[in-house]
């Protein structure tokens, strides 16, 4: 189990901002199947900073998908991340 901290900052001011509900998933695309690893998101004591508990089952390239919905609207972003176990 790995704890990943996700923090949201206003690009202009650099201040931490609350974005409401956050969802973070990892997917690995392989031939004929997709390996999925959902995470549990917890708020930390600091506003705008979240902790995600992820457990990738194997090393390699995973697609990370982040979604949020709250005071700053609704947004999503996805990117590739290389996991080394």
């Amino acid at each position, binding site marked *: 189990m790995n704890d*990943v901290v996700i*923090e949201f900052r206003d690009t202009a001011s650099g201040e931490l901002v609350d974005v409401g509900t956050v969802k973070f998933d990892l997917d690995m695309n392989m031939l004929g199947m997709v390996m999925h690893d959902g995470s549990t998101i917890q708020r930390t004591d600091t506003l705008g900073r979240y902790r995600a508990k992820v457990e990738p089952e194997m090393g390699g390239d995973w697609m990370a998908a982040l979604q949020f919905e709250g005071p700053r609207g609704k947004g999503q*972003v996805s990117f590739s991340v290389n996991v*080394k176990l």
Partner: protein
Amino acid sequence: MSVAVWVGLIALAGLDAETGVVMLLYLDQAWDRFRAAGRMNSTTDLQGAVIEGAVQRVRPKIMTICAILFGLLPIMWAPATQSGADVMKRIAAPMVGGVITSGILELLLYPVIYTLWRRRHLAALLAHPSSVAAVDEALIPVAVAPSYSSQTLGPEAMRSPIAPNARGSSKAEWRSPSRRRALVAVLLLIVAVGAGGFFAWQKLAGTGTPDKAVSSAPFATQQVQGLTVNFLHPKASYKGR
């Protein structure tokens, strides 16, 4: 658990089933030998038969355990960044721990379970010796190989249906200091191998590898809707607090 761990567990189950069946075969053969020789007259005789059968499996089983450990431990020592090491370690880890548990189960627990199970047969054998004797003739093969004890005692002693001297000799044989020392040595070896395997597993298959990647900088940064999203390891993010 990952798929690789399940693969390791299935391989371990196959290995344990195979060696467990061989242990059962040896115990059954010892039981048959004692019955054919007319030496199965009490619980002590049953214990003697089980010990005689189980002891023959001590060396082969320990050799099997050692061969598997020597084969798998290099995989556990492989660098985490080596190609395929993350999968192979997950296959090997349950086998390293499980083969030690398998040895303890097979050498210590299976004979006890067999003794408890055979006690019921022994009670029936002693209660109705005539009816069971007829069944014996059909079940027990004529050319049963003589046991170690029967070879020692000779054919004259084995002709007696009760053979009290044979039983006394067998008990004395297993209670001799050299045998007991050997048994204690084997038990200590099993415990030592088990403890060594456990500590090696804790050290080599632990979760220490991901922590090596800790850094104070975010490992990923994304821009979305005027926000900068940073992804950090918790230790790195809380280092300055």
